[in-house]
């Protein structure tokens, strides 16, 4: 067996130790990792720049659209306000009580032997109730009957266009004075009539009872 002598043993050991130097290996690993991280960062930065350009494009689009949107929102609000206001005003106009037809009906009820001296009417409960006080004089052989005739006529005439018509005497008294009608002297009576009615059908329909459950 041949004897093999390694005279460079120490040099080899030193070289091996240099190659296994942890700091050197660590630095290499760090360098590698750093390179990878740098590449990853660059990739992210590239994507971020791309997103920024997209954002700029969207912002540009929005800046073009925004004034139109703001104007249309303002106009929508204005139109909604106009629609709401008009609806409320139309409601108020429609729910008004018109006195002219009422006065026309009154004028149709007053016969030659009756005279009205005062009409005092008030609209109550937002137009749901109208209360009228009518004062006047009636003449005839039976002046009270003439006044009653007027009351009946009022119920009939007002009942044609209004609801829940109530016409009641508040006062009815004979007078001592006589009235000359058609050359004949007639006795007179003074009357006061309370007229209450509902001008709208809606208020009449409102309190209708709810349907009852069927009986078993």
């Amino acid at each position, binding site marked *: 067996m041949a004897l093999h002598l390694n005279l460079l043993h120490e040099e080899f050991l030193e070289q091996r130790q240099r190659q296994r130097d942890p700091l050197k290996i660590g630095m290499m690993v760090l360098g590698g990792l750093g390179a990878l991280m740098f590449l990853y960062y660059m990739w992210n930065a590239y994507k*971020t720049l791309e997103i920024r350009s997209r954002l700029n494009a969207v912002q540009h689009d929005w800046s073009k659209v925004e004034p139109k949107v703001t104007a249309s929102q303002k106009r929508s609000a204005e139109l909604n306000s106009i629609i*709401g206001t008009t609806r409320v005003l139309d409601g108020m106009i429609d729910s008004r009580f*018109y*006195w*002219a037809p009422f006065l026309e009906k009154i004028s149709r009820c007053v016969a030659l032997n009756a005279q009205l001296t005062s009409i005092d009417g008030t*609209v109550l409960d937002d137009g749901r109730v109208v209360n009228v006080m009518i004062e006047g004089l009636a003449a005839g052989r039976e002046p009270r009957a003439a006044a009653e005739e007027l009351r009946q006529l009022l119920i009939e005439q007002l009942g044609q266009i209004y609801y829940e018509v109530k016409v009641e005497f508040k006062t009815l008294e004979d007078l001592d004075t006589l009235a000359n009608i058609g050359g004949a002297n007639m006795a007179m009576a003074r009357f006061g009539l309370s007229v209450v009615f509902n001008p709208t059908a809606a208020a009449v329909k409102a309190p209708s009872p709810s349907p009852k459950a069927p009986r078993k």
Partner: protein
Amino acid sequence: MKKLNLTKDQIQKLLLSSIGFIVLLYVYFTFFLGPLNRSRDSMLVSINDLTGKVGSSKNEMAKATNLEKQATAATTRFATLKTLNPEGAPIAWFPPRMKAFFANLQIDKATARLEGNVPFKDADLADWMRYNWMLDLPQTDFATVGKAIAELENAEPLLSIHHLNIRASTDEPQFQQVNLNVATVMLKR
């Protein structure tokens, strides 16, 4: 497996490398990648937000266009109602207008007196006020006042008569005296 024998010097270097590695990671994530990701995320949120706004803005504008078509009647009606209110304070123009109105119907000496004004509680009528007036017609007759009231109710849609008093004139029995309490809805001036 060959056991790794490290010298003290090597262990120190290994520790130093580890510390360097940790510092590198910290710096990388805290000062480089972190802000970049945050910036990207915030930009993505902004893009989504703006895209949503741009998308909804088309609907918004379409709605406004449709509303404009639907509200044609209302806007015309509103404009008509507004024209019933001339410029200026109602106390300045309403009494003369009433006087002229009744004078045209052969009712002289008509006067209109402002009794008060109140704002509406309804939010839709925030720009409008209710004015209460007392109209005095000291010398008229039943038929004429009936026609005048009919004309008034038709000509002034925003006017409503709340109280009416017709009584025989004590001095001249052929005439009647009339008081009307009216409320008008008018624009705030």
